[in-house]
């Protein structure tokens, strides 16, 4: 059930109304749990069983871990929890990929291996709810939180529909307390939540799907047929498409949760205005990057083991972060490139003792960061290395005329430049702060433009959110 669908609109209205008339907090939570499972089952009903299994196992493991004294059995339970979660993720997400790579590796040494046909559908959201669930078990193990929450509270934490399929990746330590204590959405929360939903849908449907996606899909479909102008538009366009697609989804999720009285963290903070790559990762998909930092990079040793060890930890984290996005070497390459940038930046910053750069240098650093991040999206978007290389070559193919069409090209490039300017302006601010400065007339007008545009461009092909596939 996509947020940008009529089915969700009806589902959401029913949830809001019934949730509000429920007499007790426990009844509200039970209702939200049922609604979340209905929401999830709309994709593939049998996969509800996987969600239920994962939830039950982690709840039970965490409960035992929380009760036990320190020692090997406690650690063994944590390892068992990790194995179950990562095993499920590995089986569904990486099974086919591993078999295909094993086949290729065997062929290199002359062994003919034919893997079985792998036609198992990836359960939607498994990467997101697995990480959310893992955070609970690990935090209980480290005694950061207690492992004694009720099954109802835990099941709702994992399956709460606004974050279930594409995040933000919520932490048990932050969301469980909200679930355990009765909450009521204030008028301000409700109004701002609906406003975020409208702005999120506008980002997704109008900016990502209507302006950027057509150019991106056309050029990346046959990159050899397009010249420099079209390819630059597509490459810049994909920066816009993936940002507005995913940040739009995140805004919707945050807004929906707010209308029900729950607070989620920000997932994006003007990432294309980042100054350097470590700054970029503090602004892009914040809940994933902070998860990887806290549950992977730091346990690996973080920056505590010297230069070489730190570089290794950064690379491992980024490679796994890349692989998290999907079973493809292209994602690994993308993660590896970002890891290399972070390592290089770390070394450059260590060697450069200046603490404050002049404004011009900061602008230049922002533009360089954006340019490199944008070019690094090429292997992320391309289906294979050949397509990526062809698209990269297309950036310098000046002998072909423009083919995408003047209007889509102008809209795509124009929107990309507006996006950069807007993020630059929002760099040290927030959406809430900016919107709070508007007059009440402007507030209504902006939201009216969002809703009217959503209506005018409705009825076309529906595109799923990009991050659903991860």
């Amino acid at each position, binding site marked *: *059930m996509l947020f940008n*669908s*009529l*089915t969700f609109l009806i589902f959401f209205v029913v949830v809001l109304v019934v949730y509000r008339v429920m007499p007790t907090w426990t009844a509200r939570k039970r209702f939200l749990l049922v609604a979340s499972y*209905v929401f999830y089952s*709309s994709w593939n*009903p049998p996969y509800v069983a996987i969600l239920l299994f994962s939830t039950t196992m982690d709840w039970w493991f965490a409960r035992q871990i929380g009760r036990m004294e320190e020692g090997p059995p406690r650690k063994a339970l944590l390892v068992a929890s990790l194995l179950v979660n990562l095993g499920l993720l590995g089986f569904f997400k990486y099974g086919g990929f591993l078999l295909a790579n094993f086949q290729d590796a065997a062929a290199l040494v002359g062994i003919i291996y034919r893997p079985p046909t792998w036609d198992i559908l990836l359960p939607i959201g498994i990467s997101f709810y697995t990480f959310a669930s893992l955070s609970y078990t690990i935090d209980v193990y480290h005694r950061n939180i207690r492992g004694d929450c009720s099954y109802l509270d835990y099941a709702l934490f994992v399956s709460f529909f606004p974050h279930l399929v594409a995040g*933000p990746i919520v*932490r048990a330590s*932050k969301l469980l307390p*909200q679930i355990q204590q009765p909450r009521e959405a204030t*008028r*301000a929360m*409700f*109004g701002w939540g*609906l*406003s975020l939903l*409208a702005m999120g849908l506008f980002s997704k449907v109008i900016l990502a799907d209507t302006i950027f996606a057509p150019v991106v899909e056309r050029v990346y479909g046959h990159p050899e047929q397009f010249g420099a102008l079209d390819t630059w538009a597509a490459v810049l366009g994909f920066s816009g498409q993936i940002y507005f697609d995913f940040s739009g989804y995140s805004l919707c999720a*945050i807004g929906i949760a*707010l209308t029900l009285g729950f*607070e*989620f*963290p*920000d997932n994006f903070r003007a990432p294309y205005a980042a100054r350097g790559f*470590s700054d970029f*990762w503090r602004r892009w998909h*914040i809940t994933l*990057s*902070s998860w990887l*930092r*806290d549950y992977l*990079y*730091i346990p690996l040793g*973080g*920056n505590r083991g010297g230069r070489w060890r730190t570089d290794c930890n*950064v690379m491992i*984290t*980024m490679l796994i972060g890349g692989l998290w996005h999907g079973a493809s070497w292209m994602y690994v390459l993308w993660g590896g490139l970002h890891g290399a940038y*972070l390592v290089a930046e770390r070394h450059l910053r260590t060697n450069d003792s200046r603490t404050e750069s002049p404004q011009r240098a900061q602008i230049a650093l922002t533009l360089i960061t954006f340019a490199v991040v944008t070019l690094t999206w090429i292997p992320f978007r391309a289906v294979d290395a050949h397509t990526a290389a062809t698209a990269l070559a297309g950036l310098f193919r000046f002998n072909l005329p423009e083919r995408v069409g003047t209007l889509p090209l102008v809209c795509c490039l124009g929107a990309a430049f507006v996006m950069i300017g807007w993020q630059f302006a929002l760099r040290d601010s*927030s*959406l*809430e*702060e900016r*919107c*709070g400065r508007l007059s*009440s007339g402007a*507030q*209504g*007008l902006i*939201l*009216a433009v*969002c*809703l*009217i545009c959503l*209506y*005018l*461009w*409705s*009825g076309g092909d*529906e595109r799923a959110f990009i991050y659903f596939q991860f």
Partner: protein
Amino acid sequence: MPLSTSSSDAPDYSRALPSGDWLAAIAVAFGLLVLTIAVMEIALAERGFAPTIVDSPRLWVAQRIAASQLGRRALILVGDSRMQLDVDTTALRSQTHLTPVQLAIDGTSFVPVLEGLAKDPTVLGTVVVQFDDVSLASKTDSSRGADLQAAFDHRSSWILDYANTEDWLEDNLHSALRSYADGSLPISALVDRLIAPRPTPQYLRTLPDRSRAADYGKVAMPDWYFGRVMKNLGEDLQQPGMTYEQLYALLVRRIGTLQPEPNQAYEANIPRINAMADAIRRRGGRVIFVVFPTSGLVKAVDDARYPRALFWARFAASSRATTLNFADVPSMQGFICPDGSHLDARQRTAFTTALVAALALAPTKSALPVRPPRL
């Protein structure tokens, strides 16, 4: 991600809400949205536009399911817009005592649909394929037909299925509002029907069984006709200030220079199509390939690019199914397509009657059931 472990706290969950009454703002915005929709609907109504059934994937899949469920009673219609516009399914039903199932898809190849029917062992009825040379001449079958066939193959009968629910809601909403009439987006309705000084009138109606009825009396002729010819030709030759006579002469000259398309892919596809037809015939079904009427310069373009001797004649000679070209049937030769490519709604019944007679689709007296079967 940050390189330092010093900031290893989780992201901030407490949200500073912006000042202002955002509930009032969103309520005002919603009010303006409703007002916009209402104004558009009223303005479209004043310009003579009415809501229409939208030819959606859900409707096609419903017809496709009927094609399987009806067994031998099914009269399955496959093709493109000509099959949708030219055939009167009510007349077809009454004259053949079979149940027409409209699977034709506007602007696409018939091949993926025929392939899907051939692979489905429950399809036992009569399949009438509106044949066009382009479908065989192209090397690939990537078309909307393949997408719809995939939608049928992966359909879910589960009541809470998201896709089914969404399609049902969309179909109902779109068939209630003028902004979505004829499958347009509201933005297209705004630009092409409200802002445009001379909007194209609503000359086409989609019927509940996916057939269509065109009223060419509503469109501006001969501009419409020349537009269709140039669309078929793939070139816009019209220049400002050009008279109709000059445009006609220019088109005739251009068509005179057209060369036949290469027919290697066509020849290669013939055994594939025959295998599909044979699969249905082996189950006791019947397959009929029919070339539908075209007229004037549209026909001239087709004849120049796909000469009968190099294309249709070769297919017809190799096919074990029934084949029929309208040009060979005296009762069909007289049908003139107003736009060169499709018949007007007023011609449909007569054409359908001629088609039934030519194909001997009408049952003999002894074969008539006591009561005509219905779906």
